[in-house]
């Protein structure tokens, strides 16, 4: 059962609303703390409760819109965020409001903890996951920037309870097996247990963030009878870097990934920034995006041009596969029934390599792409030394344009060169028409991305 349904129908907490039931509108936003920060306080993050199954909340704390205001003897005292939403007419019909309030509380909590002020830009970035049809957003933006962080009580302070946190930590170190008559849920705490479970139940659903499965289940297209949750496995939640690679564990979220890459691969960090909402990024994992294997997944083009390696582990040991070889066809993976993807290794781009990532969707933010592009180029004295290019949304999988890459090496880095090769794209890609774009538009975008790639790289080289 999704958290939102539990809150509304079992707990009588109807402030949390369900609108789209697919994590795309934010009306169901609540704060969830799955772990603690370095001070041992609950680390609350906003999530979409409509696609958050209860079984992924073992040992977690949840604060809903009802929990933001505090009740005192003299009545209810609104949270600073709620106060400012009232003052700025941030609510009209009120249906999206609890979600906005929770997302904004996350923004305020984070800013206060990091000692930052809430700017208009920051507010917009934090609220991309919430749709409002009444206000036109301006009153909500005004409310966000009016928040007085000094006056605000932190949720991690109000709900701090050292005893409960210690209990929760213990809870999370204990493996869970829920074996119902129709449903089986496993939450192992070590990788070896997880592999063992996968070995015994090859048809089990591996779930980390549930941002995709949660939607499919809500829409009645899938019944998850057996579930393997990875989030209690400490080693899978890590992201780290050595000299040559960035390593991303299977349960690491996009939020963590985005933050980690800010320094090493800023272009990718920026891409993650626009492609999903904070709520989704707090739940969804990088590996989830990779194994979902959609031709329009937004992380894949970059990972493909980076020659990222997928690390798989099964009962017979582990192996590494180059990502492009991991995809055998539309949503078909080189993955044995008893194997788990445990991490992905991303080679760091060289200083001399220029990376550009593009995506086009119907709406710029929080939208599924029509076409994606990733390009890496290394130019020396006007000559292309090395180029790697991938396109998504133009074939059954994200594709690497090896032929073009081969031909382009040694050619002068000019707009003419890029345009010449762009004109040959028809040989390599076969886009389809669907609701996101016609094939003609997709073709034109692929072509224009080549030109944009040249224009931007050459412009940066000049400046």
């Amino acid at each position: 059962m999704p958290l939102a349904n539990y809150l509304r129908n079992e707990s009588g907490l109807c402030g949390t609303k369900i609108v789209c039931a697919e994590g795309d509108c934010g009306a169901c936003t609540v704060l969830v703390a799955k772990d603690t920060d370095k001070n041992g306080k609950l680390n609350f993050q906003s999530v979409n409760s409509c696609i958050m199954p209860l079984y992924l909340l073992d040992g977690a704390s949840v604060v809903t819109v009802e929990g933001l205001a505090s009740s005192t003897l003299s009545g209810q005292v609104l949270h600073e965020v709620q106060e400012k939403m009232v003052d700025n007419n941030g609510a009209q019909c009120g249906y999206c409001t609890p979600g906005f309030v929770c997302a904004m509380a996350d923004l305020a909590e984070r800013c206060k903890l990091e000692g930052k002020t809430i700017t208009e830009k920051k507010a917009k970035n934090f609220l991309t996951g919430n749709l409002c049809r009444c206000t036109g957003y301006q009153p909500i933006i005004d409310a966000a920037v009016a928040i007085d962080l000094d006056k605000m009580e932190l949720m991690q302070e109000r709900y701090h309870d050292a005893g409960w946190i210690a209990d929760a930590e213990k809870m999370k170190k204990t493996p869970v097996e829920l074996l119902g008559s129709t449903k089986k849920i496993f939450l192992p705490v070590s990788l070896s247990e997880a592999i063992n479970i996968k070995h015994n139940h090859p048809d089990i659903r591996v779930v980390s963030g549930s941002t995709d499965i949660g939607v499919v289940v809500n829409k009645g297209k899938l019944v998850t009878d057996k579930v393997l949750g990875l989030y209690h496995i400490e080693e899978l939640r890590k992201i780290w870097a050595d000299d040559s690679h960035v390593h991303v564990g299977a349960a690491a979220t996009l939020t963590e990934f985005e933050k980690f890459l800010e320094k090493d691969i800023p272009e990718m960090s920026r891409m993650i920034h626009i492609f999903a909402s904070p709520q989704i990024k707090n739940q969804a994992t990088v590996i989830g995006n990779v194994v979902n294997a959609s031709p329009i997944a937004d992380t894949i083009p970059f990972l493909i041009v980076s020659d990222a390696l997928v690390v798989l582990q099964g009962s017979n040991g582990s192996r590494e596969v180059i990502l492009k070889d991991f995809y055998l066809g539309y949503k078909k993976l080189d993955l044995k029934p008893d194997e788990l993807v445990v991490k992905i290794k991303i080679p760091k781009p060289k200083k001399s390599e220029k990376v550009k990532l593009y995506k086009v969707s119907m709406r710029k933010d929080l939208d599924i792409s029509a076409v994606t592009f990733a390009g890496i180029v290394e130019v020396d004295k006007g000559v292309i030394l090395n180029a790697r290019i991938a396109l998504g949304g133009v074939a059954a999988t994200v594709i690497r344009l090896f032929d073009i890459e081969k031909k382009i090496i040694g050619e002068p880095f000019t707009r003419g060169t890029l345009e010449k090769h762009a004109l040959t794209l028809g040989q390599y890609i076969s886009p389809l028409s669907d609701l996101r774009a016609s094939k003609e538009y997709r073709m034109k975008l692929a072509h224009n991305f080549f030109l944009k790639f040249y224009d931007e790289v050459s412009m940066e080289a000049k400046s």
Partner: protein
Amino acid sequence: MSVGKNIRHDSAIGHVSGQSVFVDDRPRMKTEVLVGVGGCPVSAGTIKRIDYAEALKIPGVHGVFLARDFVVNKWGTIVAEQPLLVDEKIGYIDEPLYLIAADSDEAIARAKKLIKVEVEEKKAIFTIDDAIVADSFLCAAPTFKRGDVDSVLLSAPHVLKGEFVCGGQEHFYMESQATIAYPLENGQIEVHSSSQHPTETQHVVAYALGLDYSQVVCIVKRMGGGFGGKESQAAHFAAFAALVAQKLNRPARVILTKDDDMMMTGKRHPFKNFYEVAFDDQGKILGLKAKLYANGGAYVDLTPSILDRALFHIDGCYYLEHCLIEGRAVRTNQHSNTAFRGFGGPQGNMTIESIIEDIAHYLKVDSFSVRKINLYGINERNVTPYGQLVDNNVLSEIFEKLHRSSDYEKHRLEIEAFNKKKNGKLRGLSMTGVKFGIAFTAKHLNQGNALVNVHLDGTVQVSTGATEMGQGVNTKMQQIAAFCFGIPATNVVLMPTSTEKNHNTSPTAASSGADINGGAVLKACEAIMARLRWVFHHHYSGVIYDGVVEMPTLDESVDLSHIVFKDSKVFNTKTNQELTFKELLKIAYFNRVSLGGYAFFKTEGLGFDKKTLTGKAFNYFTNGAAVSMVEIDEYTGELKILRSDILMDLGRPINPGIDVGQVSGAFVQGYGWVTTENLFYHESGKLLSHSPTTYKIPNIQDTPRVFNIELLENHTNTQNVMRSKAVGEPPLLLGTCVWTAVKNAMSYRSATGIPQITSPATSEVILMNLGK
């Protein structure tokens, strides 16, 4: 004094703390059933058989209901021709066909899979073009004709001929259609619905179930957004819940999922308009000939009125000396298109704004100059094609003021220079206007009633036929009552809208909620105040009314206007005698004087003659203008709004804060319609963009980087309550300026000089037409 002040929305605290109760937030009763709605599998044809025997075997399923279970299976606001559930002929794909009542959503989902529907499929009609060819028409609008447009088109210096095509729009109210029906004693039914039109909901429920109107009560506490989508189209879902409640004698809940709601319910009408326009060297329009076609979808619904309003608004803010305006709506195999904020007005208004943009590009002049010379005049050129005088005209004032305050000329120069740089980005600028006619064009709807209960502690309950959907109508009613009695607004509580208190009400629509219901509240309060003044007057008359001596009954001819209500007190300004409001109430009560008031209000002076097609169709006009500067990515066609400035004439607003919120919300909804909101259908007719994943309303990042909203000071609107003006719909029409700004940007790279795009101008539409 509470009128004119920015007091907060009366539900603001409930909204931000999650305590406001919407239909689906009502606690589930133990015997209650959930109702799932199943739709037709194809777009056209007939239903041959529905086999649900297997579905009934699913544990938790209480029943499956079909068209035949209704006593009368027909409804429709204007023409009762639409089935509640399809009995035989299919109107559109996913049209409600059967109901499943069960204990849980899971049981409904499982039962749905077991229901077999046999159909005989027929060829469907989807587009306006196909419908015209097939001669499939729903209705025609009266033709507006003035002067001799044909001769003008022959003799004019310039003529442009073209088409204007705009798509539909999903309402995307956050709360999908929702109703719970409770069976009461003696066959009565109480319906809690998310409806903009409780009276129609009551009537449809009663009629369909074979009940008297008096056996059904429809209650609306609030809606999570309506935008017109719950004006007519809340009614059949309410009837579904009521049917199940009646049949099973259990409370029944219909809550559509967002996907079902988007697939099953109507949207804004797509239009395809053909025109010929004649103009002089300066761009002054000499004549306009236009033929409008609206896609009405499968049933009549509100289409005739919507088509009328499109015609009423094709003049925009501009004088059309010679014109011939015709309109027809086609019938297709699509969800029945319905009311949506603007109600045809946007499709008419945008046509003329598009034409003007084209004229400017054709003449290679700034479109602002073309707009300016075409604006309605003050003493001449001031009569609409339908013969209504545009009085208290502030259009020129608005356009000029906004031109200055938005730095239009400076931005134009910057854009000229920017676009010469050819750096992969292209900018455009355009200002458009709105002159929105306020009144239902169906005259009988311009009425309202209100019930005001003054309690002995000095607090007041107000009930009206207006429904609250976020627009703040309740807050405005609260302010009017508080203003009358001179008490704090917090002492006035707006009660749920209910057909047992306020009956024969009009839908909360046409931007008129505060106008007609506010007018009624004012009258109800004034009647109570008159009695209270009388009591006050007699209290100080020297006579002691101790229960033996009866206070005389009210004589309205006695002028007591010197007795005023202020600061929770009642004063005699001549004698300085004063009582607290509460004291006076007590005195009135003990003298057996009524502290309740019910009043009826109708808009005076409306007189549009449907035979001559001239006269006062509207009570007044709400005016405004907006200017937007946009930037296009020339590689991808992606669009950014760099800046929008809006200036609105809202008369003397009752609550400026709430009104500004209406302006920003409507504007964003308006440019959503013309940019990202693209309804995409499968060739079978099935709507594929049926959730926020695939249907893109504006996101917070899509808001203009700079966004200024100002209100014009205007105290002249004596025709309306408190000299205010209606605000709900008009600013939506201003979203058009984003679309015309896109056209303007594209003109800088256009081979023909007059770029042609359809609406919505998605990235794809922009990129694929760039350079043409």
